[in-house]
């Protein structure tokens, strides 16, 4: 391994997962330089190929945004692992890989003799990561759930939202993404152990458990007698959107006076209702009403820069459009334009870290079965005739 290579450039991954979490985990491994072979169902492919959104809202299995983003940098092959021939081909593939990622319901892989204990004898160093809503054991192991369900059972969403309204989930598919990140960390842990100790193992990633780790207040506040509840929003409406003035925790003592001068209300500098961080937190809604007038007349990003200049921890509610225009993200070259034979050129968000200032690898997602020849013929040594037979029987 040289300094220029990715930290995983000696690693091969079989990605049998679908949806968001598993594919994201494998995508992160690809970003660090691993060769990731995504195994999809023939003809159908990963369910995220139907999820969209699509260019011009015109559905096409090769142009689903969810799929294109979550499968960047992978090779794609098709294989029907429900058929005996297919599962035995997979067993062959699994002999020479370092990592296998899967997201089937518990027991499904075992029923096809593709469980960890089936593959481990022929590949003792294999890291086998299973990602499911509730984990491989326990009374809910067979239960189903996507982003909303796991935010509910992980105790994340109950305190989110407004008083007297229902709890609200974190938007997008944030929880499923966090599970993909946690699967990535668990997989890297097992890979590190393999390098040091020589053995592989089964990694059981539970979405519920991951979300429960990310609920930062609910469990501890409850136990220490301060029940978290949904509360009024602390966002204030600016001329073109929303801001959070950030005048409480983490603000320096002399900042408040500067803010009072800025908003043209210097007399508030000594007002006991607002002149400490704690007072401003206690009288938060009054404070927001007072600065609301000033905020309403300014553009949100300008408020953010102005208040940050006074050492507040202000934020502005950036939309995807705002982020594309953010000078900070542009400076860091966070967004990448990547071409795709069906979806065309598009701007993708990048990877949030670099190692020794080398950015991670970024390339497009594969077409369905795009690398069948490379993997089956060149790597496994199937003849054109054999491959034709596998095609005609629907295995590949």
């Amino acid at each position, binding site marked *: 391994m040289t300094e220029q290579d990715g930290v995983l450039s000696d690693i091969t991954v079989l990605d049998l997962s679908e949806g968001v979490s598993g594919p994201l985990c494998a995508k992160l491994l690809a970003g660090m330089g691993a060769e990731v072979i995504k195994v999809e169902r023939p003809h159908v492919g990963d369910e995220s190929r139907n999820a969209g959104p699509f260019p011009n809202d015109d559905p096409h299995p090769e142009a689903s945004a969810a799929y294109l983003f979550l499968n960047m940098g992978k090779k794609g092959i098709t294989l029907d692992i429900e058929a005996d021939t297919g599962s035995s081909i997979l067993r062959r593939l699994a002999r020479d890989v370092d990592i296998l990622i899967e997201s089937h319901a518990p027991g499904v892989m075992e029923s096809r003799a593709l469980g960890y204990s089936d593959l481990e004898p022929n590949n003792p160093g294999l890291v086998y990561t299973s990602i499911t809503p509730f984990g491989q054991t326990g009374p809910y192991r067979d239960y189903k*759930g996507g982003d909303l369900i796991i935010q509910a059972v992980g105790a994340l969403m109950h305190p989110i939202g407004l008083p007297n309204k229902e709890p609200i989930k974190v938007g997008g598919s944030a929880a499923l993404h966090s599970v993909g990140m946690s699967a990535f960390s668990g997989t890297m842990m097992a890979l590190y152990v393999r390098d040091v100790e020589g053995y592989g193992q089964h990694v059981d990633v539970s979405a519920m458990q991951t979300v429960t780790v990310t609920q930062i207040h609910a469990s*501890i506040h409850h136990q220490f007698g301060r029940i978290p509840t949904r509360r009024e929003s602390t966002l204030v409406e600016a001329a073109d959107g929303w801001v959070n003035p950030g005048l409480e925790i983490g603000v320096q003592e002399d900042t408040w006076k500067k803010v009072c001068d800025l908003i043209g209300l210097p007399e508030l500098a000594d007002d006991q209702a607002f002149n400490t961080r704690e007072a401003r937190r206690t009288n938060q809604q009054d404070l927001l009403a007072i600065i609301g007038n000033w905020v309403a007349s300014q553009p949100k990003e300008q408020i953010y820069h102005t208040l940050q200049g006074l050492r507040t921890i202000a934020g502005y509610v950036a939309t995807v459009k705002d982020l594309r225009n953010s000078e900070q993200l542009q400076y860091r070259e966070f967004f990448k334009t990547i071409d795709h034979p069906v979806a065309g050129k598009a701007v993708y968000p990048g990877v949030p870290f670099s190692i020794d200032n080398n950015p991670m690898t970024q390339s497009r997602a594969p077409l369905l079965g795009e690398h069948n020849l490379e993997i089956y013929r060149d790597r496994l040594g199937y003849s054109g005739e054999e491959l034709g037979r596998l095609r005609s029987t629907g295995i590949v």
Partner: protein
Amino acid sequence: MNDLRMNNLALKDLRILDLTQVAVGPYTTFLLGFMGAEVIKVESTSRMDISRGQARPTPQGYRVYPDNDPGERPWNRAGHHIHRNPNKLSLTLDLSTERGKELLKKLATLCDVLIENFRASVMDRLGLGYEVLSQINPQLIYLKISSQGATGPEKDYGSLGSTLEQTAGLASVTGYEDRKPLMTNETYPDPVGGIFNVGVLLGTLRRRHKTGQGAFIDFSQREMTASMLGQEFLDFSFNARVAEPMGNRHPIFEPQGVYPCQGDDMWVAISVRSEEEWVGLCDAIGMPQLARNPRFETALARRRNRDEVERFLTNWTREQDHYDVMHTLQKNGVPAGAVLKGGEIINDPHLEERGFWDEVHHPEAGFYKQVTTPWEFSKSGRIQTTPAPNLGEHNEYVLSDLLGMTSQELYELEEKGVIGTFPIGAE
């Protein structure tokens, strides 16, 4: 946990120098601690981790203490500290003094990893940046977690997890169907970033294991949070569409939402992703005839008649316990989950059976249940939670046992305020 795994700790030979504070970094290091790493958390008597709260909190400034009582040493029993800093040792070291800097450098030669999440320029300004420390310990892995990354015009902007939700776009898609953005109040990018960083760090550690190379990792929390909106960014790129909050709804699944249940502020989440699940739902609520009604046959049809579907569902959920609704629906193949409160999640039977919660007796905060890890390994174990350390509790271990200082030297350091166990402002 079987004994075999207990003795098989993934990170048993690693030592981490932990300069992190608040949440994102502390999450990374408590997870590393669970997997067996020795984590030395560095604070000072003049600058404690703000999770410890104030040395002498005013009633107005009270954070979260057991029984709402700050006690004699509030900094050792603040809830946020207790919850985010288990599995660590506590060293105090005033890094604004020459002696403090010198000792930190010495310590860096004995550590595999240094993690910090100060504003981006702080460590360089202290003369303790990667350039300096990598000269002393070329194998050191330096993980710099910052809100905006180590470079760029906003690199020294201040933030908390709560503000990152906004500046990274997550708040722009979180909220009710009135499309007004909302904060999560859960500083969501902090714990998620904490978990993510474990993987980034271990990838770099495996390279070091093979090549002996140290590394500088630049991790941007804002970029991590923005990367959760991959498909929304592509939608903007393809269709110039700007994503907005859509409540608990889903662009395709119908019905999807949370529904009221028996009890005070109790809810259940339900999500129907296919026609098969719709049939299961109709059976479960005792209205199998609905499944044959063309007005509800497809997700699109159910969306057109959403009010009716919601009424059927709410009428059925309202009189039941939310756990009961979840079990009934799941047994009919329908994704459903009780919207658990903090008091429920710590007693949930599933997590209980998986051994997720650790029962901890903290010497200053008493009994509580601690969050542990998001994963289970078939061969690597984790430690039982070691209670979060009192301020400076391990000064002697670190300075005497590791750095070989005498008790006289320790006494002098304490006299000069370089180390201590009482924060400034506590007297």
